[in-house]
């Protein structure tokens, strides 16, 4: 696909529809089971909350073979039994196109944004296709701040299980908040509302063929909105319940793409974050209520084993990536990481230094960025294991307090980041960690 050029079938559809007020995008890949529900919710949301606006639902598909496209096109709100106060002026168009380019969520979003721009939409909302807890209200909450309150970017705010979204809780949220000074709780949530102005900005960028085309898209969208001064708010959507995580999805690839995108954007927006300190709350819309959440199983032993295995083997990479003092503390921790450990703990200060050291090493490119980012996986698993041990008996409000403490630690450590950002680190001494017997199992991917 050429730059900013729609595929032919999408172009024809856009020419036929000509103009729309609102575009709702649903990226998908083999989601026939759930996408019908998401599409019906979108149709109902548009009919109920925006009856006088023209809406188009665009499914950007990655080549599904399970009838996802048919599920979108055939889904309607005929069976929704909605009580509508106003009759919608126009029906909702439902379109499904395969996107081109690098397979991934970002490429799917690109097609949706191109379509929205082509239709001159005033607002665009994107939602995941595997959501089970989505309701028509979500679209009101994602679109209304853009359409009627002048916001450019609406981030989601959910209740999630305390062990769900650990990349968000342990890396992306604290780091984004400390860097850009705004408390967007779910920067890689997956559901967003975007204004026409911000859409144009996204499409004008030239980094679509990077990790942005994959899992990096969410943090990319949020960071651009925050760093470039667009008006940002959050909407409370309730619970986020979705299909079980793909067991085959490669955790280190996910980390690579998400964290790599955060680090790359850090380099681009260095002048923005260098002089910011502390953080401020971001407007939150929607009525907050408590919800029941699906339980999440974690396998602590596997995570601890993965960490220990990493410590034994990855010394040559970590000694380059980490500051000598951080590396030495991590090596000491490896001795506590044995199966069944209940006292294993990575404190906030050490974890913050690990993340910031990796960010600095990524900037200096002292070793391949792919190697660097993938080598973060065992450390991340150790942090998750520590978090799980620490919060086993805590309620969600107390867990949130723990995350808040981590965020404050990241904010406090910003001078450390600035000090190491340009400095050339001395290579840490590398000594092998004594091996323990036992085969290391593959880390649990459910977190």
């Amino acid at each position: 696909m050429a730059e900013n050029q729609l595929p032919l079938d999408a172009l024809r559809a856009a020419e036929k529809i000509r103009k729309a007020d609102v575009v709702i995008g649903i990226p998908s890949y083999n989601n026939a089971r759930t996408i019908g529900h998401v599409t019906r919710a979108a149709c109902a949301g548009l009919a109920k909350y925006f009856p006088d606006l023209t809406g188009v639902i665009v499914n950007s598909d990655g080549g599904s073979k399970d009838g996802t496209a048919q599920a979108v096109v055939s889904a309607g709100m005929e069976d929704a039994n909605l009580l509508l106060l106003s009759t919608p002026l126009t029906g909702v168009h439902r379109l499904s196109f395969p996107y081109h380019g690098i397979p991934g969520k970002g490429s799917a979003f690109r097609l949706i944004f191109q379509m929205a721009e082509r239709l001159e939409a005033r607002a665009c909302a994107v939602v995941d296709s595997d959501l089970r807890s989505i309701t028509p209200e979500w679209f009101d909450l994602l679109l209304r701040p853009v359409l009627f309150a002048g916001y450019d970017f609406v981030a989601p705010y959910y209740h999630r299980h305390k062990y769900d979204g650990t990349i968000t809780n342990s890396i992306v949220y604290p780091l984004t908040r400390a860097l850009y000074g705004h408390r967007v709780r779910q920067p890689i949530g997956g559901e967003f509302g975007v204004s026409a102005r911000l859409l144009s900005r996204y499409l004008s960028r030239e980094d679509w063929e990077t990790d942005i085309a994959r899992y990096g898209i969410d943090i990319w969208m949020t960071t651009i909105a925050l760093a470039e001064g667009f008006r940002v708010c959050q909407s409370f959507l309730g619970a986020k319940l979705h299909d079980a995580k793909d067991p085959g999805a490669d955790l280190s690839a996910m980390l690579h793409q998400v964290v790599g995108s955060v680090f790359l954007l850090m380099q681009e927006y260095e002048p923005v974050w260098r002089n910011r300190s502390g953080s401020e709350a971001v407007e939150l819309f929607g009525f907050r209520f408590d919800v029941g959440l699906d339980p999440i199983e974690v396998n602590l032993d596997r995570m601890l084993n993965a960490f220990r295995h990493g410590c034994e083997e990855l010394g040559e990479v970590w000694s380059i990536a980490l500051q000598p003092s951080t590396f030495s503390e991590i090596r000491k921790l490896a001795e506590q990481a044995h199966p069944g450990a209940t006292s294993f703990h990575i404190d906030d200060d050490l974890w913050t230094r690990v993340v910031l050291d990796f960010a600095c090493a990524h900037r200096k490119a002292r070793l391949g960025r792919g190697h660097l980012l993938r080598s973060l996986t065992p450390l991340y698993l150790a942090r998750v294991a520590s978090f799980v041990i620490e919060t086993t008996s805590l309620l969600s409000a107390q867990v949130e307090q723990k995350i808040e403490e981590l965020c404050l630690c990241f904010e406090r450590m910003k001078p450390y980041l600035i000090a190491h950002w340009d400095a050339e680190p001395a290579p840490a001494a590398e000594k092998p960690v004594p091996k323990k017997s036992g085969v290391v199992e593959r880390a649990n991917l459910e977190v």
Partner: protein
Amino acid sequence: MIETMQQVLEGVLARLKYQATTYLPSLVAALIILLGAYIAALLARWVLNRIFKGIAVDRFLRRTGLAFMLDRSGRLRATRLVSESVYWLILLGGFLTGLSVFNTDLTTQITQSFVFLLPKLVVAGLILLAGVWLSQFLGRSTLVWAVNEGVPSPRKLAGAVRVAIMFVAVVVAADQLNFARSVFLAAFIILMGGAVFAASLALGLGGRDSARRYFQEQSEAKEERGERSLWNHL
């Protein structure tokens, strides 16, 4: 007796005089050329350090990891690389020119051999450099992958990858230099063949069941993956 000694001494002095008149001017000329080359090399390095920036080369060195491979501190810059290369090339040119002043069979032969061998040496050096870089890169890739996948002995595996790649690089470099060609090639074929044969035997005799189970699990996991979303959230 005294006369004989006198004749011997006169002979020695005559030989010394002959050698001095024959070789001393050449030696002085060679030293002057070498000194000139040294000054020219210093001057070229000084000028290049000031005028040559090579930002794109710096970026290439940093991105490929060559900067850290060639210099552990990672401070290697294109400017230094180019100026040092030019410095040593001028010195080498001066040395060869100095040698040619003597105009003897030996010096001519040395100069000719060196000039003939230089391009091959450069190419072989580049092959070895590429081999070192590739072995480091792929070794590290193997290491990180093996750790994340829980494969036993990642460092040994990574070491094996590095050794294999370096071995290939040495074989190619030796071939380029025409040095013990057949020995290296035979060693390479024997080692690679042996490794493949050993792996086949190990898999066939020791791990038939494990291999079958592994491939079966992979196939099942692939089928299951196809039915699930790739975008479940983090």
